[in-house]
């Protein structure tokens, strides 16, 4: 019995060595898939910027003497739409993607939220900061996860929460400052992006397959497209002024 032990250990070691490239590439999902990139275009005339009155709190007023501009609809100079959450809605069923340990940082700064729209994975820590010299209550209203409402009265305060089920999108608001609102796209995979100043998005390392991709906007609703990766690597969504 005893003399078989050493050769068999060696056998498994060699087998593992051969298999390791396959294991690693499989886990990273990097086998010849690709990024799916694109733009979210805005068609029509942009609505005039909405000025929010913030005098209900002197601390906020001090930072926004001329009022604050609403982030509900932000049309970029290049005719694209900011703050659109683009994500894979269907096509990844049955696969699991562990939640990253790195938190998403969600800041209350200048009496508004940064970021205004963001993606987060189920179970991924959401680190909520208060960088303001005033108090906020941070009230998340998910339907699939547990609703929470937390008081953050002190500058520099930090709390960590997480969502337990996918949901697009979860509204987060503050009842102290009724103009404050943000949205979280909660997913059980990492294939999402939020459009920024140039209206572009990129879903990196998407494994080959057929997907339903959705673009979500807080005012203009949702649009979906079906794509085949890697055959298609670029798509665009168009939202029309209402």
């Amino acid at each position, binding site marked *: 019995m005893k003399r078989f032990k050493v050769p068999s250990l060696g056998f498994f070691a060699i087998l593992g060595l051969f298999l390791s490239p396959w294991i690693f590439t499989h886990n990273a999902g990097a086998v010849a898939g690709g990024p799916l990139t694109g733009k979210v275009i805005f068609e029509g005339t942009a609505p005039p910027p909405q000025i929010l009155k913030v005098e*209900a709190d002197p601390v906020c007023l001090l930072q926004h003497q001329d009022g604050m501009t609403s982030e509900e609809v932000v049309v970029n100079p290049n005719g694209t739409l900011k703050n659109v959450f683009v994500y894979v809605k269907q096509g990844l069923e049955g696969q699991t993607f562990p939640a990253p340990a790195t938190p998403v940082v969600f800041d209350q700064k200048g009496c508004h939220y940064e970021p205004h729209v963001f993606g987060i994975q189920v179970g991924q820590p959401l680190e909520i900061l208060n960088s303001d010299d005033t108090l906020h209550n941070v009230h998340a209203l998910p339907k699939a996860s547990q609703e929470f409402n937390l008081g953050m*009265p002190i500058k520099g305060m930090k709390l960590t929460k997480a969502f337990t089920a996918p949901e697009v999108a979860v509204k987060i608001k503050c*009842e102290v400052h009724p103009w404050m609102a943000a949205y979280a796209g909660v997913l059980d995979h990492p294939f999402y992006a939020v459009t920024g100043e140039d209206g572009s998005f990129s879903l990196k390392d998407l494994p080959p397959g057929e997907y339903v991709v959705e673009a979500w906007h807080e005012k203009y609703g949702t649009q979906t497209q079906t794509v085949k990766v890697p055959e298609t690597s670029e798509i665009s969504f168009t939202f029309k002024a209402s």
Partner: protein
Amino acid sequence: MTHRLSQILALLTFCLLFLGGLVTSTGSGLAVPDWPLSYGTLFPPMVGGVRFEHTHRVVASLVGLLSLILVATVGFEKRGKPVRWLVISSFGLVVLQGILGGLTVLHKLPAPISIFHACLGPIFFCSVVALAEVTSPEFGRVAEKGGVGADLMSHRQPLIAILATCFVFVQILLGALVRHTGERIWFHVGGAVIAFILITVWVSRTLGASESKSVARPALFLGLLVVVEFFLGIGAFAFKRLEGAPETGLARILFPTFHQTVGALLLALCVLVILRSKNFVGPRLR
């Protein structure tokens, strides 16, 4: 002493009802997430929504305290049984109301608790108004004569008095349902028509048969106020529930708040007219 205090309490409670309505109308109910403390302290900075929610809490605490003091004074003054019961039930109601207020905050305003809180407020107010009434010296004199108003036992008036009062309460309940769920507004509007007719009939009969100002005055006030309430309701509907109504603005806050507060006042006036009417419950409460 009991009389003075209960008068003050009635006035303070009326203000509290209005302040509570402001909390709901401004959507500030969750601006203070914790309870019984507010942001872990007794006095958080009064900014934004905290101004409404915390003011409501502070005034509610005063109302609670005053109700407790009344329990003490009524024991001291050796008042009759009905008065003692009114004081004790008022105190019980205010404690329950405070707990409901706290619970609705901790559970993030579930409609059932908020509706319960919205209905119990006017009931507590009525209990305090009744207390202020039956402890007044005038009420004593009136009661000796068996009441001053229309003879409630004749003209089949007890029925209409009770029906009208119940219907005002049903309206408060249905209104709270609209306010906290946004649904079933047509029940409330239908109820308004019935309540309006019942009150008009009751008031006109009472005025026709009344022998004294002390019942005619609140009856007349009741009749006028129900008309005002109707228009406030239409205002609340137009500025808040109608499609395309603006999302912000003072009208959207004030119409529903006044509508809600006047609703409670109507209920209290119903109670007052009943108490002052001849040969009914009032004279037996001494």
